[in-house]
């Protein structure tokens, strides 16, 4: 062992190679190849009779998704829902994370973290179904909302937004909480000391420092919402999102499905590129 160690210690390149070999092989062989193959498929077509792939280059699918109104509508709807979900979750995570990290006692902090972690283990499907039940005519929301003069929004885009915001909330709260934790208390003291009132301190000192955590959380809420079609089926009423379009085409027309998938891929890539500089990618 020692002689291997001695040799290796002289060869950082080999050390790095040994560390990277397995994970990189995995990621490249499994993921990059699969993704690349899918992207290539977007430029193929399918024999409508035998349903066999025809491996000849065509822009038909891409043309179709860029020209047909359907894809524009659904893309905008999906983007809108994903953004709304992300906004709602961030808006909730900001005060809650702050309370957990900076106001609650050390003891209750632990309990709160546990409380926000536990719902992650309740099946996503079960939660979506519970929301279906909540939102339905005469459901809990209708019943409770009736008391304050509000009904249920029923099944539809609003329901999708609410349900998704609910399901992904813990994924946003946890990184935001962690980001608050990393803000030293002395910075808050310093701001107050220099005359900033709490609201001001929050806006000018705390908020900029939790942005990476917020962005990390938003990657979860945004991309998980972008790709979901099951929640949409359960509470979305008659609506569909990009995930549904990819899904229904994935069986009968993989090239078209792949072409549609280009949309969320592009959106996410742009999003990642935009947030890269915030350092959020290290906070997932």
């Amino acid at each position, binding site marked *: 062992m020692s002689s291997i160690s001695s040799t290796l210690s002289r060869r950082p390149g080999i050390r790095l190679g040994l560390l990277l070999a397995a994970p990189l092989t995995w990621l490249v062989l499994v993921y990059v190849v699969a993704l690349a193959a899918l992207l290539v498929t977007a430029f193929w077509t399918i024999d409508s009779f035998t349903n066999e792939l025809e491996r000849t280059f065509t822009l038909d699918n891409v043309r179709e998704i860029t020209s047909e109104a359907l894809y524009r509508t659904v893309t905008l709807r999906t983007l809108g829902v994903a953004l709304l979900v992300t906004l709602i979750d961030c808006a909730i995570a900001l005060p809650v994370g702050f309370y957990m990290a900076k106001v609650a006692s050390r003891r209750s902090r632990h309990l709160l973290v546990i409380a926000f972690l536990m719902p992650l283990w309740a099946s996503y499907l079960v939660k979506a179904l519970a929301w279906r039940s909540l939102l339905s005519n005469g459901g809990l929301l209708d019943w409770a909302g009736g008391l304050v003069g509000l009904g249920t929004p029923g*099944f539809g885009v609003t329901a999708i937004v609410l349900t998704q915001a609910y399901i992904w909330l813990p994924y946003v709260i946890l990184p935001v909480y962690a980001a608050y934790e990393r803000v030293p208390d002395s910075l808050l003291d310093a701001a107050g000391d220099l005359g900033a009132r709490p609201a001001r301190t929050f806006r000018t000192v705390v908020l900029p420092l939790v942005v990476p955590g917020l962005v990390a959380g938003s990657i979860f809420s945004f991309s998980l919402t972008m790709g979901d079609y099951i929640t949409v089926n359960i509470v979305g009423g008659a609506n569909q999102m990009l995930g549904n379009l990819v899904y229904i085409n994935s069986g009968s027309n993989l090239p078209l499905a792949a072409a549609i998938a280009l949309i969320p891929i592009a959106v996410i890539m742009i999003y990642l590129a935009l947030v890269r500089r915030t350092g959020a990618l290290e906070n997932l």
Partner: protein
Amino acid sequence: GGDSGSESTGAAEKLGENEGEVSILAWPGYVEDGSTDPEVDWVSGFEKETGCQVTSKVYGTSDEAFNLAKSGEYDVVAASGDLTLRMIAAGQAAEVNTDLIPNYEGIYDFLKDREWNTVDEKNYGIPHGYGANLLMYNTKDVTPAPTSWKAVFEDAPKHKGQVTAYDSPIYIADAAVYLMAHQPDLGIENPYSLDEKQLAAAVDLLKAQRTSVGEYWSDYTKTQASFETGDTVVGTTWQVIANLIDPKKAPVEAILPSEGATGWNDTWMISSKSKSPNCAYAWLNHISDPEVNAQATEYFGEAPNSDKACEFASEGHCETFHAGDEEYAKKIWFWNTPINDCLDGRTDVECTDYQDWTKAWAEIKG
């Protein structure tokens, strides 16, 4: 044409030794081995009897099934009519020699040699259960009691947001059935055989309907619940759903409207790539066994495939589901796969195929 990519040139002539395993792709509730409910098991006996170990996978939509079947990992596929012809066209399905299946004999004649299980007089599978896509309505909210599909088309705006429809491209055929009766000048002969103009008319009708649709459904718990809660008051259904609904929560009625209806008759098919054809044949025979067939179709909620099966079914089951009622069956346009060659025999036009329908369906939903 069973030649593209197909490995078997013809049906098996005789059976050999069972291979010891068989993998089956089916709708939920078709291959129950007691794991969902210990009472519900028609697999264990088969395994013991034949020595064929069963592995099964369930699918949610015909499209999903098609994709899975392509992998060639399944010996047997339970396919609805919107899938069968695609399987056959893609060379995924093997021709089935019904002579090797003793239970085939007792199966209702009106299910045999139909367009969704037989091509060029070659059988590609064994008919399983069947049923109709009925019109269901809440008797309190929908008055007077409808007798026509008009309730979900022209009259749908009366119940805006409370109309439901089956969530699949094949639902376009329901619109075609309606148009066949109400717009004869479109010349629709077979709801699964639509040229571009006819499809466009159906799409328009469905787009209009879309504005009143509260939600589309594809699993029955969902539609059961939404009728019970009142989220939905009218729409397509299956008999089994109507039976499940608690009348105290929602008084519903399910009818076969005057225009007739679409329906399904699923087919047990054998993969052209099957490595266990003998076990596959054994399964096809087993599932057509009257007792087993009764058990399976009753569990899923559809009519069994033979009169003999009705002897094993519970009291009233065959009546409720109109099993063997040929007149009733005649009103049903069983699911079929739209393909370019018009199924109604027209040769002057090219018909729209399932892919076109899939696109149209996405567009309808918007």
